[in-house]
């Protein structure tokens, strides 16, 4: 950083600092090369040499060769020590540039005793902090649910106001635009189910039952589940990112300051769109899965489409179809609710938007699996 011309001829490889006490005045003799790469003296040991009673701290830099930030760090420690001990610091013999940097570094006082300074806290503090923060999140989510419920019931009171164009846009994005990926995934799931089933069924010469297996699995379980998982990763995450970014850009605040409820204006159209589209996508996914199953039945076992379809139609009943569709409505509510909730309750930074998006996908999928398990138990109890 700086060379001192007067002493640059001396070739000292290490940094040294010695304390000399005379008449209650501490003289710090600084010598050698004070570079980041140099071997520097232990500050604790130097501090230990200061007597309890010191009138003044002075410096002697006549043997100082080169220096960089390492000297300023050392001086800053001495400065903090002098403040703590209320001992005057005489900077007169320090190099001008070092004094100037020290002044710059000490222009703003060290921030201490801040209630937000959580460093060096013990485990109880950590547990307490996390508990309070978790409770705060639960409170935010309950507030979201409450606000959403009010907005939802306002629809029936004809007091809810959102733009029809927003609803149509959300329907377009969560319905038709998702068809391709839902088709592909469902077709492949049907294909996989048929393939796995066929290996076992062919041992008994009952390959025609591939139709029953695929039909039942798709209609009762896989259709709704696959749609929910695809939509959680696609649309739910998009909702969270979109609303989260709006929050970061203060667009949500702008709605609030106009007295417009973001819940009615932003969340309701998305929720309605997903709840309407989920059953339709599920029916479509069921059909694509059955077609996937047929592809294996026809390609590997030469089963014609009349036999395959008649077997499927004979085996399935309306209750099973409705069970799958009913589940899809609940999954739609979960995906929309979680996506919007994570977006609306996200923090104010770009990182928070990323976290909200990830959390939306993980939470949605977890809740979908939990809800499906509950449905399985309920269907079993009611003999569906």
């Amino acid at each position, binding site marked *: 950083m700086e060379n001192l011309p007067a002493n640059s001829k001396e070739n000292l490889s290490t940094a040294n600092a010695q304390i000399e006490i005379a008449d209650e005045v501490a003289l710090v003799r600084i010598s050698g090369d004070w570079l980041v790469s140099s071997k520097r003296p232990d500050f604790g040991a130097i501090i230990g040499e200061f007597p309890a009673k010191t009138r003044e701290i002075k410096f002697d830099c006549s043997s100082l060769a080169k220096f960089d930030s390492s000297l300023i760090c050392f001086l800053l420690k001495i400065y903090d020590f002098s403040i703590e001990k209320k001992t005057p610091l005489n900077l007169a013999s320090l190099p001008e540039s070092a004094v100037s940097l020290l*002044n710059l570094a000490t*222009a703003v006082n060290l921030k201490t005793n801040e*209630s*937000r300074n959580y460093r060096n806290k013990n485990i109880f503090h950590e547990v307490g902090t996390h508990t309070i923060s978790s409770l705060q999140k639960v409170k935010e989510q309950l507030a979201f649910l409450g606000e959403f419920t009010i907005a939802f019931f306002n629809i029936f009171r004809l007091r809810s*106001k959102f733009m029809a164009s927003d609803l149509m846009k959300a329907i377009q994005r969560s319905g038709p635009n998702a068809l391709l990926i839902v088709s592909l995934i469902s077709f492949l799931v049907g294909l996989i189910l048929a393939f796995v089933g066929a290996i076992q069924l062919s041992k008994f010469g009952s390959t025609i039952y591939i139709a029953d297996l695929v039909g039942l699995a798709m209609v009762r379980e896989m259709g709704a589940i696959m749609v929910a998982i695809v939509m959680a990763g696609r649309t739910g995450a998009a909702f969270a990112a979109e609303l989260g*970014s*709006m929050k970061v*850009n*203060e*667009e949500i*605040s*702008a*709605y*609030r*300051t*106009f*007295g*417009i409820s973001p819940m009615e204006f932003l969340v309701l159209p998305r929720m309605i769109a997903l709840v309407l589209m989920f059953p339709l996508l599920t029916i479509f996914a069921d059909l694509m899965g059955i077609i996937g199953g047929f592809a294996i039945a026809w390609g590997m076992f030469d089963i014609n489409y009349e036999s395959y379809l008649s077997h499927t139609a004979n085996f399935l009943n309306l209750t099973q179809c409705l069970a799958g569709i009913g589940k899809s409505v609940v999954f739609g509510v979960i995906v929309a609710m979680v996506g919007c909730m994570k977006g609306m309750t996200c923090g104010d930074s770009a990182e928070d938007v990323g976290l909200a998006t990830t959390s939306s996908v993980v939470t949605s999928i977890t809740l979908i699996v939990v809800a499906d398990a509950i449905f399985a138990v309920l269907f079993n109890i009611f003999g569906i």
Partner: protein
Amino acid sequence: MSSQKITVENLSIGYEDYAVMNNLNFEVENGEIFVVMGASGCGKSTLLRTMIGLQDALSGSISYGGKNFNNAPEDEKSEMLRYFGVLYQGGALWSAMTLEENIALPLRRFTKLSENDIKELVNLKLALVGLRGFGSFYPSEISGGMRKRAGLARAIALDPKILFFDEPSAGLDPVSSRRLDELILQMRDSTGATVVIVTHELASIFTVADRAIYLDNKTRTQTAIGNPKELLKSGNADVRTFLNRGVDPLSTENKL
């Protein structure tokens, strides 16, 4: 709201466990341009968010035209919000809508005007901020300065009685910043609205402010209130130093 006088009494603002500012007391008269100034992080924006109801006050009260705002029931609060216009730091335009749609939304929502009238009003508001012909643009298609002006056009859509500005000059070049300041003055002169501006831009403070309040982050309260030019001469040392870019004009030992 019959009057747009703002009264703040014993206000403490901040977050659950942390008071950013305590014991704030000031009044803003009808048609006055009042600047909230202070160093970065001192709580200026928190005060603004509290004043417009986006954040709860820790204690104290904020009244508009003699009506308490921060402790009012939600429906009363919503009613009072109708008289506010807010320009956020980045404009906060709704990104999925064109400028026209941004300005038209509050008009459609809160008035029973015909679509033709709304269109006329939207054009007028855009013209007022110098954005005539930009109605069909999306916020992403215009510059930062234009976004601020479009934000202002939306803020004045419902002819608010009180205008709030959060760092209006932030991120603008000096010319755009000056234009926005002039726009604020013209808006106040033509509409008679009360204006509250949060900023630390000295040029803006001296250009627009009738009075200013200084929030001191060391004492965590207000330490001066008055006309900025007078505060520069006779305010306390911190305020003078702030208003003179870190150098106290009355001190003989100036250092940065």
